[in-house]
């Protein structure tokens, strides 16, 4: 199994992408998609990516739902800031250093993507030596609040999944 099909999850998603692209479930397209998926996953294995272990897969749907809710909420917040209806309080953007406890490369990638995809926060830099993430926040109240938001809301749950 591992030699013939090194990354079953990647192969399955490649097959899914192919079937979505051609929009058919005919035997021909499934066969071609399966061949492409096997070839793709073996090509990936040749690149020897770091191994990932997905523990507690059951929490992934809940996490994705929370990401969607957060995206909608911060879309509203950022739209208000841009259109200048954020109240009389003077808004200040700035950088925040977030010290992390997570070391799994896939977990860090997922965290960075979640934070960047959410309007209002962008991951600017990551320092592997100190395991510190540099974040730019559009509406920075204070750094400590954001450290707590990132750690409690996302990092803990991603650590449950990836480590």
């Amino acid at each position, binding site marked *: 199994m591992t030699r013939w099909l090194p990354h079953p999850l990647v192969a399955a998603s490649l097959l899914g992408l192919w079937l979505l*692209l051609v929009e058919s479930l005919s035997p021909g397209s499934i066969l071609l998609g399966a061949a492409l998926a096997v070839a793709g996953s073996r090509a990936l294995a040749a690149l020897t990516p770091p191994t990932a272990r997905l523990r507690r897969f059951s929490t992934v749907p809940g996490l994705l739902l929370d990401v969607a809710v957060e995206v*909608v909420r911060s879309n509203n917040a950022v739209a208000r800031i841009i259109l200048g209806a954020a109240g009389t309080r003077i808004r200040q953007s700035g950088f925040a250093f977030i010290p992390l406890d997570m070391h799994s490369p896939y977990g860090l990638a997922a965290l960075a993507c979640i934070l960047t995809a*959410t309007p209002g926060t962008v991951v600017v830099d990551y320092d592997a030596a100190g395991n510190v993430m540099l974040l730019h926040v559009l509406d920075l109240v204070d750094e400590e609040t954001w450290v707590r938001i990132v750690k409690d809301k996302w990092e803990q749950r991603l650590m449950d999944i990836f480590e």
Partner: protein
Amino acid sequence: MTHAADLPLWIALPVALLLLLGAALALTGAIGLLRLGSFYERVHAPTLASTLGIGCVLLASMLFFSVLGSRLVLHEVLIAAFVVLTTPVTLMLLTRAALHRDRREGSEEVPPATASHVERK
């Protein structure tokens, strides 16, 4: 618009609302791109268009073509997946490049590479 004449009203209304919401969010993002003061603030603006902006339009398109063709159209999921996966990556690459350039020029706007937080560890 003859093809849409036989579309039921209860599907035309949500499609129209989603379209207008998505376009309005994309426009807000673009206005932000114009109005915000510094590069690091402007980076936040396109995320409006890349998340809910294109998301609403994709949802409207899925609804519309599914009802029109009376079969489930999932093509848009593919575009949504690409956009969701690629936009954060490009934004991170771009801000990283900008940070790199600003640090090389010794800009006061960005924090130095060795911040006090790192040294404390």
